[in-house]
């Protein structure tokens, strides 16, 4: 039962990180191997905010802004020049691998390899029904719900949200109907960075410390949630995140906890082999150039 309680908290963090990944993928069809680094950047943004002000609002804003700036730069300064010369999707993927390595090592130079403590004010323990949660856990779940509701509202009811969905559906058709596709792509990257930065803050607050590889080690879990939900389907990704989060924490009651992430990878591989387009897919989706 405790496993389920922890699982819901883990699922919240995974959901935030992988919805951002899935949203960006749905618009650009480029998987971003540097997505974990966006989380790390957000976490360090929050850390710098804490060192300067000790104000949680500033810390969250710093996390989101740093994520958004790095994601926008990644698209604008690095990926777009490659796309302009017609780079293949696999090349773009390798480019994001290289960029992730660069960001990771820049952070290593700036903050050192030792974990930096990131602690929020003390938490109380609550028993909610059968679950045992700290006030931080509850805040994480509430913030995730709020962020996802806001995202849902934006996708559904704003003009930008509608153009985003149009571009992800059919970029050519969207362009013909007068949607400024490059602008939508650029804004999607910024939005991706905002959410990923926030996820980085949440992850750092949950673990209590930050290392330059904190986001990278989380990356395959993000991949797993996104692929299980159907890559590029933000709503399916939520279910994927829930499944992965629960599977990871519940399995920890039965097998050594260090196999937690292996459980996520195992689920990922099984999904890729039997339902490569996710559990909600209606047809086999071919990933071809």
């Amino acid at each position, binding site marked *: 039962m405790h496993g389920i309680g922890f699982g819901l908290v883990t699922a919240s963090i995974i959901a935030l990180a992988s919805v951002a990944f899935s949203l960006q993928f749905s618009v650009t069809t480029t998987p971003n191997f540097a997505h974990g680094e966006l989380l790390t950047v957000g976490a360090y943004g929050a850390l710098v905010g804490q060192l300067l002000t000790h104000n949680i609002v500033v810390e969250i804003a710093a996390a989101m802004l740093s994520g958004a700036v790095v994601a926008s730069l990644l698209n604008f300064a690095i990926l777009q020049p490659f796309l302009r010369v017609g780079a293949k999707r696999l090349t773009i993927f390798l480019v994001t691998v290289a960029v992730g390595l660069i960001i990771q090592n820049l952070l290593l130079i700036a903050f050192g390899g030792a974990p930096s403590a990131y602690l929020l004010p003390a938490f109380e323990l609550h028993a909610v029904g059968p679950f045992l949660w700290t006030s931080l856990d509850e805040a994480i779940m509430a913030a995730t719900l709020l962020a996802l509701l806001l995202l849902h509202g934006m996708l559904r009811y704003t003009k930008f949200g509608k153009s985003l969905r149009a571009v992800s559906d059919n970029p050519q058709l969207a362009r013909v109907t007068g949607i400024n596709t490059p602008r939508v792509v650029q804004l999607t990257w910024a939005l991706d960075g905002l959410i990923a930065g926030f996820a980085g803050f949440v992850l750092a607050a949950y673990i209590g410390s930050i290392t330059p590889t904190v986001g990278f080690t989380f990356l395959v879990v993000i991949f797993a949630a996104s*692929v299980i939900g159907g890559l590029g389907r933000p709503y399916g990704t939520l279910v994927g995140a829930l499944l992965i989060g629960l599977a990871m924490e519940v399995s920890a009651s039965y097998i050594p906890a260090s196999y937690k992430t292996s459980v996520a990878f195992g689920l990922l591989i099984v999904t890729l082999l039997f339902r490569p387009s996710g559990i909600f897919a209606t047809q086999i989706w071919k*990933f071809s150039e």
Partner: protein
Amino acid sequence: MIDYLVSITTLAVIFAIVALALNVRWGWAGEFDFFVYGLVAVGAYVYAVVTLPPAPKDDPGFIYMLGLSQPFPVGVLAAMSVTGLISLVVGAIALRHLRQVFFGITTFSSVLILTAVISQETRLFNGYNGVFGVAQPFNDILQLPYHQYNLFFLGLCLVVLIVVYLLLERIFWSPFGLVLRAIREDEVAAAAFGKSPYTARLKAYVLGGLISGLAGSLLVSYLTAWNTDAWAPQETVLIFACIIIGGTANSRGAILGSFVVFGLILEGTRFLPPIPGHPDAPSAIRAIAIALVMLVFLRWRPQGLLPERHLIDADPSSTSRLDGIRNLIRRPLRRS
């Protein structure tokens, strides 16, 4: 200075063999494979436990399986058989449906699972602490002093590299090599010519696995110790960098790329002055330098220093370059 040069040359030669293994998978067959370095690690572990004496009974901090005290050739054969077998199993499952980025994600996750299992199951290869005290190949017979032995080992690695290179060159220009590249260019067209893409890919995958096991044996003989820290996923990026800089699908390119990456970039940045208060800076700067060079090549010279070689129509009146599936048509051809 000589010792230093011998040492980095040996490392570059061993990594050239790893790069050749990845080149078969990534360059020839077009598989986005992250598993190669995991296989190098498995090869290293298997070689170590086959050549090491049985684990000491009284030391609970140093346990590993087997411990057969076998000589170098037996260790290499064992390592290659295990990595070949793992490649066969992983390839047979993953190559069936998965392509491109999905293949990359799957193989990447598989390596992480492998790391978790090897770290946890201490009875296999001593968990996190890994194996150490691996003997220097043939030195029990030769009894060479330190400096001369290092030269001998460099020679041994060079001989292995040359043998692997010559073998791969033969395969590259063989009908099988042509089929493989035809499949990489257009799977459907190759299948229409009656070639099974799955079988050809699987063969290439196992070939890459065998070479990785060989390279792993040499690497652990050189380092004399091996643990999970030695094969972080980032190392695979290093090997991709070797191939992209040297030239994708060109064996000479992969070798050249390894020497560029290890000789110039990794060792060139070693002489940077240390930055006070930032002990991690030198290694971080090395990684950034490699990633940047890789980006520059991907953007401005994606074919690498030595581009892929093609068969060219030997008839002087014709200027057409025969690529991909058209290579399958029997005509008088010469190599570019």
